[in-house]
């Protein structure tokens, strides 16, 4: 087991390095941070001094090497745009993104699983057809459009919910949470629906397909033959067996939710890491972009590792083969 973890971590290192290298190479195309920092008025001498200060006159691989060495020490430098340590900025924004992602994932599960069960059990009822049609909307409408439609309906027309921001937040140590105030919870509703809608429909369709599959298996027939109630068959036997892939997919999707919260955060001016990233792109703020991309890469690597370990825990067949089963 420890050998397995170590080998996975060793595999992760080249992935991280490749992400760093590719993102670093792309920064050459996002524009010139110096021009943006200097604004409209400067002298050539000022410009040269700034280029030197930022080390932008060095060859590409020297810049990259220095970045990697610093990153390994947890040192990402100062944001060009905000003159503040990059790590501070990311730590400050992380709670907003994580709370939004968790709420969205929770919402997706809470609504998606029951809807999936229902549509699996009552395939032909009109409600099932409605759910399935509705889920098509969730899959096909782009996120920003859903967000704007929600804002238009619930903020502008009905005036029930705020159209932007996190509302009031409470500080718990370095973590700022919106869960503890009414305003904070109200502000979470629209963005988390926007972000979670796609996942919700995904989970619903997944649960439905798994349910249909499981209900056809022999052991369900035996269970029925034993005279168990519908309730015991559906929830005690069928549902339990459908949940393994659902948990896996949800775990993997959580990474995607965090990484792709960018659009939702932009629409709702949600002060999370995605918004920070977008604003950094606009200002060619290379230190923030590099740190963010590395962080997201690390997140995906970690989630993959956890999912692999979960397989270990859930599926006994993998353990028998000495960890080489799959």
């Amino acid at each position, binding site marked *: 087991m420890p050998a397995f973890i170590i080998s996975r971590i060793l595999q992760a290192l080249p992935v991280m390095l490749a992400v760093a290298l590719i993102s670093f190479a792309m920064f050459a*195309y*996002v*524009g*010139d941070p110096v*021009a*943006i*920092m*200097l*604004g*409209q*008025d*400067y*002298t*050539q*001498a*000022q410009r040269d*001094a*700034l280029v030197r*200060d*930022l080390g932008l006159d060095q060859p590409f691989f020297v810049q990259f090497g220095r970045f990697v060495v610093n990153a390994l020490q947890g*040192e990402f*430098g*100062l944001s*060009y*745009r*905000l*003159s*503040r*340590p990059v790590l*501070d900025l990311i730590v400050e924004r992380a709670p907003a993104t994580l709370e939004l992602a968790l709420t969205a994932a929770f919402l997706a599960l809470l609504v998606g699983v029951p809807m999936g069960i229902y549509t699996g059990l009552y395939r032909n009822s009109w409600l099932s057809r409605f759910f399935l049609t509705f889920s098509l909307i969730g899959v096909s409408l782009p996120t920003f459009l859903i967000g*704007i439609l929600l*804002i*238009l309906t619930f*903020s*502008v027309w009905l*005036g029930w919910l*705020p*159209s*932007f*921001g*996190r509302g*009031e*937040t*409470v*500080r718990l140590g370095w973590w*700022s949470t919106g869960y503890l105030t009414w305003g904070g919870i109200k502000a979470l509703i629209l963005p988390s629906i926007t972000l979670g809608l796609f996942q919700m429909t995904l989970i619903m369709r997944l649960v439905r397909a798994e349910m249909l599959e499981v209900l056809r298996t022999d052991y369900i027939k035996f269970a029925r033959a034993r005279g168990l109630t519908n309730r015991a068959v559906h929830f005690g036997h069928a549902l339990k067996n459908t949940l393994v892939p659902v948990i896996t997919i949800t775990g993997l999707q959580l990474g995607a939710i965090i990484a792709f919260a960018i659009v939702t955060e*932009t*629409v*709702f*001016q949600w*002060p999370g890491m995605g*918004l*920070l990233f*977008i*604003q950094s*792109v*606009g*200002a*060619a703020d290379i230190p923030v972009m590099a740190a963010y991309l590395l962080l997201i890469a690390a997140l995906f690597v970690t989630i993959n590792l956890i999912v692999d370990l979960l397989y270990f825990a859930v599926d006994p067949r993998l353990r028998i083969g000495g960890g080489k089963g799959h």
Partner: protein
Amino acid sequence: MRRLGMAAAAAVMALGLGFASLAEARTVRWSASGDPNTMDPHSQNVGTVTMVLQQIYDALIARNADLTLRPGLATRWEQVEPTRWRFTLRQGVRFHEGEAFTADDVVFSVTRALQPTSNYGIFVDTVDRAERVDEFTVDIVTRVPDPILPNKFASVYIMSKSWSERHNATRPQNTRAREEMHTVRNTNGTGAFRLASREPDVRTVLRRNDDWYGWREDAPGSATPAGNVTEIVFRPIGSDATRVAALLSGEIDFVLDPPLQDLNRLRQAGNIRVVEGPEVRTLFLAFDTYRDELLYSDVRGRNPFKDLRVRQALYHAIDIAAIQRTIMRGQSIVTGTLFPEQVNGYVREEDVRLPHDPERARALLREAGFPNGFGVTLDCSNNRYINDEQICQAIAAMWTRVGVRTQLKAQPLAPFFAQIQRDDTSVYMLGWGVPTLDALYSFQSLLRTRDGRPGNGIWNYGRYSNARMDALIDRMGVETGAQRAETIREALRLYREDVPHIPLHHQMIPWAMRSNISIPHAANNQPYFRWMVVN
């Protein structure tokens, strides 16, 4: 967050205001697409920073809503010698944290703005040093006679010397430093409002400074009576649609930059008012007149833009009225000159365009030896100026119609500026604002031959070079009075005749607000909350 802190501060405020007529709190919540990147008054010279900082910090000289000068922290100023300006300071002023304002603070602040890490160098470009004469008199010694120093000093904010020294902030942030400076998130000015709390990109709260001297000067009945706002909450919203939605839903009272496509909708909403005014920002097209062969053209062996007739032809080809009507929806002021009338040196007789005349354009191209026209690439931004991409699309079509087959390359501002600042362009569109409100700034940055001296030709990416223009610009920098006005007029005439640029229009900027709010529109696109009235 900070709910408690705000409540406590509000309680303190209420105590302080107990006897005043303004005991009732009037909060205004406003928004713009960008958040100030820093609270340091000498670090970044961009509109998104000054729109907040000018509420907190005062300069020696202030501006009225029509941008004319008025006393600020200095009550009088005069040019006692050609290279020496004397400022008499206001007495009895205190910084927000209690320090008394004296000549030392002025000397300190001017010196700070002169540091290499300052982005405000353009406003002190001629300054050699600041000298304390006595506690309330300061001399600014310039290297050359500088007739427009007061214009520039309206943008040099005054900080407290002792506060800056205490917080290790005697120079603006150095990008090489690894640590954040105190001034990035803290302020201590003398202005009408003080910073109460700040969360970058989320919320910036300012509270009225009742001790500010200006409240008494703008008494009711004066041209711009003092406003009644006690608290300003700034919340940036990057997405256009969301910003408009927040205004419509009543979560925001005032939007500095409503998107043009939503203006009609906002006007139709019952409780929203849209106020429009001219901005001191002029859009123009500039040519590469330097290279012997253009980088992005199919003409080999010569540069067509070196020929005045080609530049005139492209000028004649542009139907500016159509651009104004259909793309700008009437929200632009068509121009034939380098800057709008708010700028010192403007001459109405020189604000004349070459008429729209495609026939004449074709004839001029034939005369210049391009009977079949030629191909060229036009560089544009697509998110910097109002409708920039659409304007360029229209111009590309108009040029193509007279035979100059134009390819448009429209990019976001970051790569666009990176490209043109390498002189890597054949013809490009730029929008130019004039923070000093004086002609010299535009001439020097845009049209002077680049010779390495500060300010000369730093935005002249077509490398236009004309010895007569250079001589006129150099004279503008040292002359005074009527003689200087005549020099500017001559330079404007030369600008019209030699067509180094094709001027297009001055932008109009709309502000949108709830109908219970009024604020004078300012052409520098700066909201002066000291004059905002909330009913």
